């Protein structure tokens, strides 16, 4: 077996699984459970390959670059895709169900490749491989008007931002003559205005994926209109991969062009986008009446926090940013899981649909409490530590004090809208006197997974080192990294 194929074994397993799920869907059209099981088994097999025989090394001149850090991120996005597959069983319609699972697997493949590349061209290809299945997933209920509109918006904004990304890459290539990030980093600061234009265009492309202002317009509609499992994947997995590759592009490729307040570079651009995202996301979330839309605006605000971490311009902020985005993805995936279960039993995701949740299913209400309090940053949950670490790291750059102050103030505001959801779920009585509580909650895989995610968020808050140590260790210069067990020659 060629070394490249051996190193890409997890991705190959995932691809074969996706194709097998497609074939299963065609041959046995009604086999929902079989398709889900097959997708899960394939995904777990891929994760096991990734975990226990990780392939390391750089292939094809940096097109594929499998570092220990990339391995961790790949494992995270694969796990989030598996979460989406479990959720899909409770939120996708019967028609074309196997195709939905195959699309989730294809998107996961794109995210994994996105985490493991050092080349701008491969970044573009992997981003498209991630985005195209997500567009289709968002359009899954295309016969209804709102999802069709949301998906079209997502697709159009996405294609335009992909065009921006590609044009930016071509400008950067035109000036520097390379698409490799390491080769790019040897170029001194941005003297050439053409380089600045290319850099800003690439940032536009990434800002769409992170849903940062002014590229956030698609997010609320898509989160509301897409099947909730697809929204969970868009909010969690694709965000982790996009933030990681953005950080890699900025710190690894454009490190010398960071600039600062007053000097041209990418750091001031990110700082302004971060401030705008935090303000718009947190303020617009205050008036939402649909929990999925509320989570979308919360995602925009959280995109702002992440950009704040990157805006410091120091590679030292990388562990804080990655820790925060992973915790955020786990939390928001869990929150979407609660929304799926509420939608299933009450038929909607408006705030009123959450009334009396603590009476009808107390376990679910406690999970919702954990997720939303973590998003708001209340100790001892993981979100608190993530935000604390992120802001503390950003404060080491004295030019960013205003931005951190803004973030802390807006974070206090965000507590209000999370508490409104919790008021509906925990305090308000169910309409018509609690007759909703009729069917006893049966333990479904989604329910179990939501509980597991809540425990994970709690554990990551109590013992942040469990996640932080591998992250920081893999960021150190590669010396001890080669000690991984090799199971393929």
């Amino acid at each position, binding site marked *: 077996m*060629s070394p490249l194929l051996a190193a890409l074994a997890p991705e190959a397993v995932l691809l074969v699984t996706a*194709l097998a799920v*497609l*074939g299963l869907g*065609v*041959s046995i059209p009604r086999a929902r459970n079989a398709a889900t099981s097959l997708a899960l088994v394939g995904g777990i097999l891929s994760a096991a390959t990734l975990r226990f025989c990780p392939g390391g090394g750089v292939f094809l001149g940096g097109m594929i670059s499998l570092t220990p850090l990339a391995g961790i991120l790949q494992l995270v996005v694969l796990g989030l895709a598996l979460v989406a597959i479990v959720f899909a069983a409770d939120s996708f319609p019967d028609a074309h169900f196997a195709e939905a699972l195959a699309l989730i697997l294809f998107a996961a493949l794109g995210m994994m490749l996105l985490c493991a590349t050092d080349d701008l061209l491969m970044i573009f290809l992997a981003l498209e491989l991630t985005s195209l299945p997500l567009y289709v997933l968002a359009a899954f209920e295309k016969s209804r008007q709102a999802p069709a509109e949301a998906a079209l918006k997502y697709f159009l904004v996405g294609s335009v931002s992909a065009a921006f990304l590609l044009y930016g890459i071509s400008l950067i290539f035109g000036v520097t003559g390379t698409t490799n990030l390491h080769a790019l980093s040897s170029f001194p600061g941005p003297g050439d205005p053409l380089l600045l234009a290319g850099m800003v265009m690439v940032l536009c492309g990434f800002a769409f994926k992170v849903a940062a202002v002014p590229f956030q317009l698609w997010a609320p509609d898509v989160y509301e209109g897409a099947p909730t499992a697809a929204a969970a994947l868009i909010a969690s997995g694709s965000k982790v991969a996009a933030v990681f590759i953005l950080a890699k592009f900025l710190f690894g490729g454009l490190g010398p062009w960071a600039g600062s307040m007053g000097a041209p570079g990418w750091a001031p651009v990110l700082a302004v986008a971060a401030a705008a995202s935090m303000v718009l996301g947190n303020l617009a979330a205050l008036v939402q009446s649909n929990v999925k839309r509320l989570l979308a605006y919360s995602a925009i605000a959280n995109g702002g926090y992440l950009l704040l971490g990157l805006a410091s311009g120091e590679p030292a902020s990388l562990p804080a940013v990655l820790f925060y985005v992973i915790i955020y993805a786990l939390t928001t995936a869990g929150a979407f899981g609660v929304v799926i279960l509420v939608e299933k039993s009450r038929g909607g995701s408006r705030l009123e649909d959450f009334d009396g949740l603590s009476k009808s299913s107390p376990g679910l209400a406690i999970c919702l409490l954990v997720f939303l309090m973590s998003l708001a940053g209340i100790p001892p949950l993981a979100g608190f530590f993530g935000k604390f670490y992120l802001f503390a790291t950003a404060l080491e750059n004295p030019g960013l004090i205003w931005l951190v102050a803004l973030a802390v103030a807006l974070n206090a505001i965000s507590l209000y809208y999370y508490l409104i959801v919790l008021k509906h779920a925990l305090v308000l009585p169910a309409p018509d006197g609690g007759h909703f509580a009729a069917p006893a909650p049966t333990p479904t895989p989604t329910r179990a997974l939501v509980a597991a995610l809540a425990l994970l968020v709690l554990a990551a808050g109590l013992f942040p080192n469990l996640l932080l140590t591998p992250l920081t260790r893999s960021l150190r210069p590669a010396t001890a990294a080669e000690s991984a067990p090799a199971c393929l020659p």
Partner: protein
Amino acid sequence: MTSYLLLTLFLVIAIIFPLVPLAMAWAWARIFSPAKPGHDKQSSYECGIESTGPARVQFQSHYYLYALVFLVFDVETIFLLPFAAAFLDLPASAFLALMVFLLLLLEGLVWAWAKGILAWK
């Protein structure tokens, strides 16, 4: 800076150049052929026969599915051609790799077929 000045000059010329004949045509029409609308002049001309029905006709657009499926063959051709040209110099593993690649593409076609996309509705 001078190169950008030149560029601006080109831009200005590029805007003026089409505007001048347009303005001349407009002035010509204004002076020599004033508008005198009438029933026969306003009616739409379709090969001399009186036109009936609205001009907006809906037509089937699901031909795009065939265009998408054609992509399978398109990509196959693009990759098969250089493969065939270098066929004699390639090791057996390359043949195997290409067969795997063709199988991947083929599954797309089989999937579309089984889904009934090729049946004209």
